[in-house]
């Protein structure tokens, strides 16, 4: 008998080599996914709103905090989380719907912030845009991975539902900035808004948006581009 013996789990082969995943395990987990997608209501319920001030103020604060976080300051990190977690978690929930997945995605976002704060480049954008880009990317990477294994219609449904509750305007309508956003969103055509929303919150590619809407692919590309350009111009983002 050797001094040390090992046992290799046969079932775990799939872990090291994903293509050989056992069928039974996959089937079980797929059931799990359907349950998740179908039983969790899309509407997360009325959120508690809190005025967050203008994004300009917020961005100055966040820029300072990010510098401290880059130096390993945990208090600054806690403050940054306090100021932004409602947005990051809100984004995750809007895209992923499932609260548990959203929690995981949020955790990943802040780990990435903690580890990558030093790489934040003010010249490349505001802290908020940087953060929300990470948050969105994390969420849609997950939603696309989930969708690869489940019924795509389930997500289309999720993306299509409840078209306006997610706009910032409805959540803080006393805010001047929010009023501007509301007004500017109103300058988009319905079809432009619809295409942007399906892509952004549904995690759909332009091609999937086209399939879903039964529209031509070039048309959808134009709608998304034109919608975002119009919004940008109206808001005076430069």
């Amino acid at each position, binding site marked *: 008998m050797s001094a*040390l013996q090992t046992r290799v789990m046969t079932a775990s082969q799939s872990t090291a080599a994903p293509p050989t995943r056992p069928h039974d395990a996959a089937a079980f987990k797929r059931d799990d996914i359907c349950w998740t997608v179908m039983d969790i209501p899309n509407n997360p319920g009325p959120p508690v709103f809190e005025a967050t001030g203008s994004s300009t103020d917020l961005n100055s604060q966040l820029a300072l905090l990010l510098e401290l976080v880059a130096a390993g300051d*945990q208090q600054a990190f806690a403050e940054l989380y306090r100021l932004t977690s409602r947005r990051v978690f809100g984004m995750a929930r809007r895209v992923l719907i499932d609260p548990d997945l959203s929690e995981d995605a949020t955790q990943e976002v802040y780990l990435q912030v903690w580890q990558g704060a030093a790489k934040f480049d003010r010249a490349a954008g505001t802290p908020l845009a940087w953060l929300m880009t990470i948050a969105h990317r994390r969420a849609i990477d997950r939603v696309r991975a989930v969708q690869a*294994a489940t019924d795509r219609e389930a997500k289309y449904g999720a993306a299509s539902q409840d078209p306006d509750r997610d706009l910032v305007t409805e959540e803080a309508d006393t805010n001047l900035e929010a009023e501007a956003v509301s007004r500017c*969103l109103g300058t988009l055509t319905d079809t432009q808004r619809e295409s942007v929303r399906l892509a952004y919150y549904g995690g759909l590619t332009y091609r999937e948006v086209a399939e879903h809407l039964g529209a031509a692919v070039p048309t959808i590309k134009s709608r998304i581009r034109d919608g*975002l350009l119009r919004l940008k111009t109206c808001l005076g983002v430069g």
Partner: protein
Amino acid sequence: MFANDIATDLAEGRVLELAELYALDAVSDDERAMIDHYIKDAPERPEFLERVRETRETLAVSFAPEEEPPAGLFDDILERITKDAAAQPVAEPVAPSVESPAVDDLAAARMRREERTRVGGARRWIVGAAAAAVIALGGIGVGAYVSAQNDPVNQVLQAQDVQKKSAPVPGGGTATISASSAKDSFVVLMDGVSPAPEGKVYQLWTLPKDGSAPVPQGTMDAETLSKPAIVKGLSSASSVAITVEPTGGSSAPTTDPVLVVGLSA
């Protein structure tokens, strides 16, 4: 007018018109890579990046649903950061690969939450692999031998009481564990083992003898995979396990172990 596919748009000189789709993440991963490649040395690069930046600023203020995250989430994040700092340095964070199997993601999410709320989760986690046999670390040599080198890895490898065993790793290669009771440490060396799939790393765990949750002992990415990893606390560990985890590692195992080695004194 756009074409049906991104390749044609690029070939026909419309890269700038793709900036909004790109910023919105409304392209597939392949298409994103294609655009990244194209723009890398293109003269339109500054203008493209500027349009992407403006779009992201626009999105950040226009589409901003807010929801209060669960209480305790920040503590979980801090805990993970602290653990990561205590273990080996983690690899550069990368966006999770879209190719990573979705079922794993969901299963991982569930598993993590279960682990978070369950005390003594280790026992159940290990159940399928529990028949892992045992390394008998008898005849504890008193640590009279002092390594010629101060390197802790060498101190273990050259300890008089060192016990070694190699085990095959699924997918090819071997893991060799060298344990020294005198040093209360063991060294794990992977040889000929392919790196974990993209977006994943191998993570080492010790299972405490008291049955509490597995303790993360650092991750091994493609770069560190061939280097020896030293783990302290041999005397309090009943087994060592290796799992595949998302890049950056996990605070609790999210997959079944690839390999479990029992240790006993």
